[in-house]
């Protein structure tokens, strides 16, 4: 029977299949961070269990870490206790940890690919919903809860039901200034935050194949924002080139064997998807969100919608609640929305290419005097690379802040937060109420829209800047 890429990876990991029970799925890589793991390790201890495969497990500190003075002890005692709990657990159970200050430290979804631990055809889990990021390599990667973290630690497996299959095909060429972030925001606006529920999404089509690995990660990252269990992209030469030479990538004869297998990881031509969505890349423009869920997004040329324009009562009510929280009036052009803060970072857009795109727009310019811009590299390695290229200087000269690596203002578990009523343009993935700080208001944007917005102080597309220069 013809099968999809996701089905192939899934089937290759079934340890046990019995009628009337979920399949038992083997997990090739388990990534761990400090927030969703302490109760899981406690559970192991209480039951006298060990970690079955510490060699397939890797931990990092990312959610709580400050981005200033990273070598000083964490000032917040509760954050500090959580990070210390991870250090203790990693030592006790023999798990490799990249602590603050380590050259491998960073956001869990940035370091896996960067180290070459994320490879095609693998099953990867983490107590974190954005684990879908790793699907960019053709891996089946998904977020799990703390009870499941404990289950994987103890058994290296998970009981699973085979997910449904969805194809999102993006054909054509993206217009200049339109990025992977705009593609995924457009997809979510199209299918809604529950549109992918129960499905794995395979992104395909010429526009996807033309993307770099980092851009593919941006797309897969936000699969969860469409409600999907995971998102993936078939591995190709771009994938192999990215992986070759990375610390944990195979070498020599192993590399050849691996690539031979990876080349088989493609959806069969006549495989059937449960749902298909088509998007024409040429019609896309920069997207921004106006509401409090990632499906509430529009092209930047649009205006804040009128709740009355929604046919569905639930959508109407959601729009009313969102506009009240966001402090927005229907009919206001999105470009006129003024922001206080621009956040460039996160597992969605905190990689080197994202920083390069933003730095290019800022080079030799100053950001708006009333706007602050926080640039937070996704990992220590991204930070080092950016500094080697002189990007830190570009950001600093433009008046932005250059910080240490971590999740930072994506969720404000560290001191990087919005104040009540403050508004941000953020390259992260969630515009939920209070996500970036109590009462904070978030507009999700791409790195280039973030940089353009920092220059003007209101939501701005990169193309707008060129127009104002030529006029």
């Amino acid at each position, binding site marked *: 029977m013809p099968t999809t890429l996701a089905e192939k990876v899934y089937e290759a990991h079934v340890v046990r299949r019995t009628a009337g029970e979920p399949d038992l799925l083997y997990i090739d890589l388990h990534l761990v961070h400090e*927030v969703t793991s302490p109760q899981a390790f406690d559970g192991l201890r209480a039951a006298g269990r060990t970690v079955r495969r510490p060699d397939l497990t890797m931990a990092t500190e990312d959610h709580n870490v400050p981005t200033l003075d990273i070598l000083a002890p964490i000032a917040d005692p509760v954050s500090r206790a959580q990070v210390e709990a991870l250090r203790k657990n990693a030592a006790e159970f023999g798990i490799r940890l990249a602590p603050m200050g380590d050259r491998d430290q960073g956001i869990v979804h940035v370091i896996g690919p960067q180290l070459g631990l994320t490879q095609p055809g693998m099953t990867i889990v983490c107590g974190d919903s954005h684990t879908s990021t790793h699907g960019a390599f053709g891996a089946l990667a998904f977020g799990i*809860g703390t009870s499941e973290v404990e289950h994987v630690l*103890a058994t290296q497996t998970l009981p699973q039901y085979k997910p449904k299959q969805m194809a999102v095909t993006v054909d054509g060429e993206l217009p200049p200034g339109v990025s992977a972030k705009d593609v995924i925001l457009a997809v979510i606006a199209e299918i809604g935050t529950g549109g992918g529920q129960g499905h794995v999404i395979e992104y395909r089509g010429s526009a996807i194949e033309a993307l770099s690995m980092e851009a593919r990660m941006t797309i897969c990252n936000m699969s969860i924002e469409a409600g999907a269990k995971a998102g993936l992209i078939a591995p190709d030469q771009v994938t192999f080139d990215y992986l070759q030479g990375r*610390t944990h990538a*195979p070498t020599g004869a192993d590399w050849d064997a691996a690539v031979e297998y990876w080349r088989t990881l493609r959806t069969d031509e006549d495989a059937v998807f449960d749902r298909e969505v088509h998007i024409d890349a040429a019609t896309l423009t920069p997207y921004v969100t106006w509401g409090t869920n990632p499906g509430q997004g529009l092209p930047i040329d649009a205006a804040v919608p009128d709740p009355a324009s929604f046919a569905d009562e639930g959508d109407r009510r*959601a729009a009313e609640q969102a506009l009240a929280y966001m402090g927005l009036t229907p009919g206001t052009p999105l470009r006129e929305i003024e922001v206080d803060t621009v956040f460039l970072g996160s597992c969605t857009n905190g990689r080197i290419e994202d920083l390069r795109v933003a730095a290019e727009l800022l080079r030799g310019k100053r950001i708006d005097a009333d706007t602050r811009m926080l640039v937070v590299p996704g990992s220590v390695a991204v930070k080092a690379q950016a500094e080697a290229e002189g990007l830190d200087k570009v950001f600093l000269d433009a008046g932005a802040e250059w910080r240490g690596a971590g999740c930072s203002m994506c*969720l404000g578990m560290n001191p990087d937060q919005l104040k009540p009523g403050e508004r941000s343009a953020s390259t992260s993935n969630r515009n939920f109420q209070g996500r970036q700080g109590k009462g904070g208001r978030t507009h999700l944007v791409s790195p280039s829209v973030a940089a353009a917005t920092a220059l003007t102080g209101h939501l701005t597309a990169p193309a707008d800047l060129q127009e104002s220069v030529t006029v």
Partner: protein
Amino acid sequence: MDAFTTHTGTAAPLRRTNVDTDQIIPAEYLKRITRTGFEDGLFVAWRTNEPDFVLNQPQYADASILVAGPDFGTGSSREHAVWALLDGGFRAVISSRFADIFRNNSTKAGLLTVVLPQDAVEALWAAVEADPTTQVTVDLEAKQVGYDDVTVAFDIDDYTRWRLLEGLDDVGLTERNLPDIEAFEAGRPSWLPHAQPVS
């Protein structure tokens, strides 16, 4: 985890769609390393800022069943959202659509998530708004929700239902299949990555 067979209590109508787990419990409460005591963070922003938020209304303060709009539990995978609902006195959540990870987490911690068609949710909202003392029964054995003279059937896979009815721990069940796991491991390609440091 505690077994779930049947539960009767009053219900709170949460007329909101897309209730994400950041709303159920914000990130600042996730710094704790315990598994209980999250009730203070449950819906804390809405409880603090919205005087007429449903759980601020005395007639719903003791509700043990939450009836929510579609796409409940979206966003972050934090199982703390399930723990906070349990700590806040809820035994069941009813919605027409749950986010996958939230639903999965709920089954691991003994919170019953019941999927009903949206029109059945609307009818239940109307009933508990008309009379907040309405006794609602969620019966996992019979796979039905009942109140007044209404009975609505719901679907749940047999395996999850059995685990919940028995209050069984997944890890213990999987450990019975250790030989299968060992056999699978023996066949894994040697080039697959290991996380140990490479010098």
